[in-house]
């Protein structure tokens, strides 16, 4: 998964693990393998100054010529960027890195520097007592989140063999597997990959099911589970999610689906569920979390069943027919499906509004009126 994630521009990977499990080693192995020696690691465990991450003022230029020249930090120029113990980075450094990840540029002393394509790998131990609590939008900018666990008995033997083989220095022995130019070439090819419409549909549906809420939790001051009291969809996936996904999840899934197709020749809907497990955990907050990966796996299993149910009900073919023209018999079947599916209900309600305007349906006959569901004003289709 970590290798697949390197196949799109400005890739970012977060590794989460308890202490001593090898998150820093994995980060360094990836950086060396892809960027060789052209990598810089900023560590949250040490004192990080702004000049080390972004840039510092060139004092002689200021003194002699009165010009504010900035010496950009090696971190901004290097192809490989590592962030060790990211949860211990101070909020100012985090803000600068956040800006770099967001806009692909850095600012210092009124000067702007465009940052070239890069590979960014970060790691953290979220349970560390000396953590800063970084804002969720910062974590949302990481494409995937990899979780590491302590080694099983047989894996410990494997590691010891590897350490013996490489003279107890895995990182130093790691060769550069690809040049950065080769990576850039691969990234261009991956960007050209065309995905099957069904796969794109499944991908968008997966994200929408983890976002949708008939009571608009995104804008609501009250959040689940309180918001869900008495809701028709209380047992659905939406009822288990407190803070929904952002659209960046769709982008990350799309990049990884393309990379999978490029590398393995195909990407099936089943692959999407596998990929989603690494794209979603750092992006959403669940109502109850015991073990984020297990909880997420349960939700993805429910999503899988939901997809099957949708196929059995022929929901999308029904919607396809209704998009062409209104028909009461098809509409009746679509309504039956919509009372079991928020994402489908949203699309049907949009069509209902059009039919009410055009005449074939009366307002009091609509699902939205009868169930008391309304789309936000900005989601309503504009009159043509």
């Amino acid at each position, binding site marked *: 998964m970590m290798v697949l994630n390197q196949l799109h521009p400005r890739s970012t990977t977060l590794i989460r693990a308890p202490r001593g499990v090898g998150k820093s080693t994995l980060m360094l192995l990836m950086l060396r393998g892809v960027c060789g020696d052209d990598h810089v690691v900023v560590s949250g465990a040490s004192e990080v100054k702004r000049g080390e991450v972004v840039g510092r003022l060139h004092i002689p230029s200021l003194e002699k010529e009165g010009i504010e020249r900035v010496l950009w930090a090696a971190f901004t120029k290097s192809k490989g960027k590592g962030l060790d113990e990211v949860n211990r980075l101070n909020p100012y450094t985090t803000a600068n890195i956040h800006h770099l990840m967001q806009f692909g540029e850095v600012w210092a002393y009124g000067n702007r520097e465009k940052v070239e394509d890069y590979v960014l790998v970060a790691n953290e131990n979220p349970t560390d007592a000396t953590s800063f609590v970084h804002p969720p939008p910062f974590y949302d900018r990481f494409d995937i989140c990899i979780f590491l666990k302590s080694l099983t008995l047989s894996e410990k033997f494997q590691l010891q063999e590897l350490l013996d083989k490489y003279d107890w220095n895995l990182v130093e022995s790691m060769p550069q597997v690809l040049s950065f130019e080769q990576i850039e070439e691969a990234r261009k090819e991956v960007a050209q990959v065309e995905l*099957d*419409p*069904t796969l*794109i*549909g499944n991908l968008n549906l997966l994200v929408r099911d983890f976002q949708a809420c008939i009571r608009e939790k995104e804008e609501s001051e009250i959040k689940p589970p309180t918001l869900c009291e008495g809701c028709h969809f209380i047992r659905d996936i939406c009822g288990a999610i407190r803070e929904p996904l952002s659209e960046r999840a769709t982008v990350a899934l799309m990049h990884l689906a393309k990379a999978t197709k490029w590398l393995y020749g195909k990407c099936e809907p089943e692959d999407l569920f596998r990929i989603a497990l690494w794209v979603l955990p750092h992006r959403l907050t669940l109502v109850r979390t015991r073990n984020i990966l297990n909880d997420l796996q349960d939700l993805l299993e429910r999503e899988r069943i939901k997809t099957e149910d949708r*196929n*059995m*009900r*022929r929901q*999308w*073919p*029904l*919607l*396809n*027919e209704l*998009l062409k023209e209104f*028909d009461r*018999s*098809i509409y009746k*079947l679509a309504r039956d499906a919509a009372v079991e599916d928020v994402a489908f209900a949203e699309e049907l309600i949009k069509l209902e509004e059009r039919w009410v305007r055009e005449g074939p349906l009366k307002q009091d006959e609509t699902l939205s009126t009868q169930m008391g569901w309304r789309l936000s004003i900005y989601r309503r289709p504009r009159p*043509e």
Partner: protein
Amino acid sequence: MVSEKYRRFLESETHKNPLKIESSIKKEHLTISWANVKERPVQTGSSDIIDSIYLGKDMQETVIMDRRVAATLQDHLRELEEENTRIRRRIKIMKVLIGAFVVIVALMSLILLRINFPRIG
């Protein structure tokens, strides 16, 4: 406005899981089947008509019944015809009775009117 990719997604889903719509009676009342005609294009087997009648199972394209089933159906039809004749006879009797009752009520009303208002006659 609907995105082209969204349309393509819906079209591909329709292609994979087609709806069977009876076009001959379109506009009047559509008959929609959720049967996957692609996966099961030709129904070569036969349906048990008894299962479809009593258990509500879907019938396939061809319905074949054996002699015993036909005899059972014939028997049921005969019973229904007999029941029909019997009910029709009852209805006829009931009609006569209702007619007689209406005549009696009318006569009684006339008699009561004459008793209460002798001047009218």
